[in-house]
């Protein structure tokens, strides 16, 4: 954000999350929200990552464990389906991979520079000894 002079911002260091009015933000998805430049949604922490999670939808069962345990709102789920990762906000912690219950996992960590195509090409196969467990919610 532009570093304004002392007379260039709101009093009291007050910040507004949105440009203009929002009436029902709890049911408005991010893509439909009028975020202001003051919302950290408009910023990126992509450069925090050393490794990044990549998603293989072929194995995903849409259990949403990754969604609920992501500390950075970076698992994008729409209509109860996991559809991708928000790489502006993902810090690369790897929780999504840890909690993924499928066999093989539908999310795996790769070096930040890895391209998705080659990652998917070398995705591990199902391990025979461990059947994919039906996830239980608790």
């Amino acid at each position, binding site marked *: 954000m532009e570093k304004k002079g*002392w007379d260039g911002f709101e*009093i009291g260091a*007050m910040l*507004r*999350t949105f440009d203009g009015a929002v009436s029902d933000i709890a049911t408005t998805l991010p893509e439909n929200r009028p975020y202001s430049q003051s919302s950290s949604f408009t910023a990126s922490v992509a450069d925090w990552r050393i490794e990044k999670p990549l998603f293989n939808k072929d194995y995903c069962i849409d259990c949403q464990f990754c969604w609920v345990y992501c500390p950075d709102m970076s698992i994008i789920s729409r209509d109860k389906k996991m559809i991708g990762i928000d790489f502006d906000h993902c810090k690369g912690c790897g929780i999504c991979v840890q909690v993924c219950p499928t066999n093989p996992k539908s999310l795996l960590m790769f070096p930040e520079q890895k391209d998705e195509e080659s990652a998917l090409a070398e995705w591990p196969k199902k391990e025979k000894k461990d059947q994919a467990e039906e996830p239980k919610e608790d």
Partner: protein
Amino acid sequence: MADTMELRDIEVWDGNMAASHALRQVQVDVVAAYPITPSTPIVENYAGFTANGYVDGEFVMTESEHGAMSCCIGAAAAGGRVATATSSQGFALMVETLYSASGMRLPIVLNVVNRAIGAPLNVNGDHSDMYMGRDSGWIQLDSYCPQNAYDLNFIAFKVSEDHDVRLPAMVHQDGFMTSHTAQGVHTLPDDVAYKFVGEYKPMNDMLDLDHPVTHGVQTEEDWHFEHKARQQHALMTAVIPKIEAAFDEFEKLTGRRYNIVESYNMDDAEVAVVCMGTSVETAREVAEEMRAQHGIKAGVVGIRVFRPWPLEQIAAALKDVKAIGALDRSSPHGTVGALFNEISGSLFNTDTKTVLTNYIYGLGGRDLTKAHLVSIFTDLKANADAGKVTTPLQQYIGLRGPKLSFF
């Protein structure tokens, strides 16, 4: 809807009762407070108004003064009229949050019934708490009597809540000498008082659910300086004109005139004392006597607005005097008194050639007698005649034991 209260044109009120009625009449939305001598009756009176249907706002008795001001800040940020009262140790406990309130630009009115700060513990009036607040970014208005304590509350709300200002304001009165001394107070009818201050106009209010707002952010070295500068700019440029406008409007409404700097017998004064609180009234009386009985052209300058410090107005008020006594009712702990410093700073770059000395008086509620003021004016006359300081720069007056002075 709260009941209105029929008041006589003149009520016999002490300063605390006057302040309580002002809070009731402006229909404060949230009062969050904690009792402490000598401001306790403000809160008790207000509780009584609430218990009898004269208040329909919320009255929150917190667990401490820090909690009280914290609640006030939350309430003010939520978006409504907020006030509280405190003194002394309680004020000291609040100090952290005072900076938060001003930094977040939240209009809150704090009635400070001035009292000494321990140790040793003391419940009586001096200006230690007022001085402790002077760097906190609040507007500080000073009352000399119960009438002032009443009137200045209306001024405080009106100025503090102005969208060009949005800074919290303290209304000071002297513990016991004003707060517990009943005098005739000219009143305003409830509706007239409310109309003078006007309806609260929210700004950046948390309770506007369509416009979420973040208050109380962190700003480090790349932003903090600019934010504090902006706050100082408002305090330095917006406040005095708004107070002057409010004083003018108040005079039209009531006939009572207030000034940023109160000058008494200053037109031809050769010597003057500068002081605050109830001492102003005593000094005025003695100045008259010095003129009548001793032929000394004595005047008094009373500080009405302690923060923002009205540097130019003070310089103008004192420009023709030959000797000035700055009377500080707070232990300066290691330097000259605050008023001495402020007046020095106000006059230093001007053409005024005057002799300035400092008197420390009245700590812990010790009386300032007329005899003390006679001796001060006599000192000042000697300084004026000599054109230089003939006494120590800082003298303690009204103190038992050997004479104490410094510099």
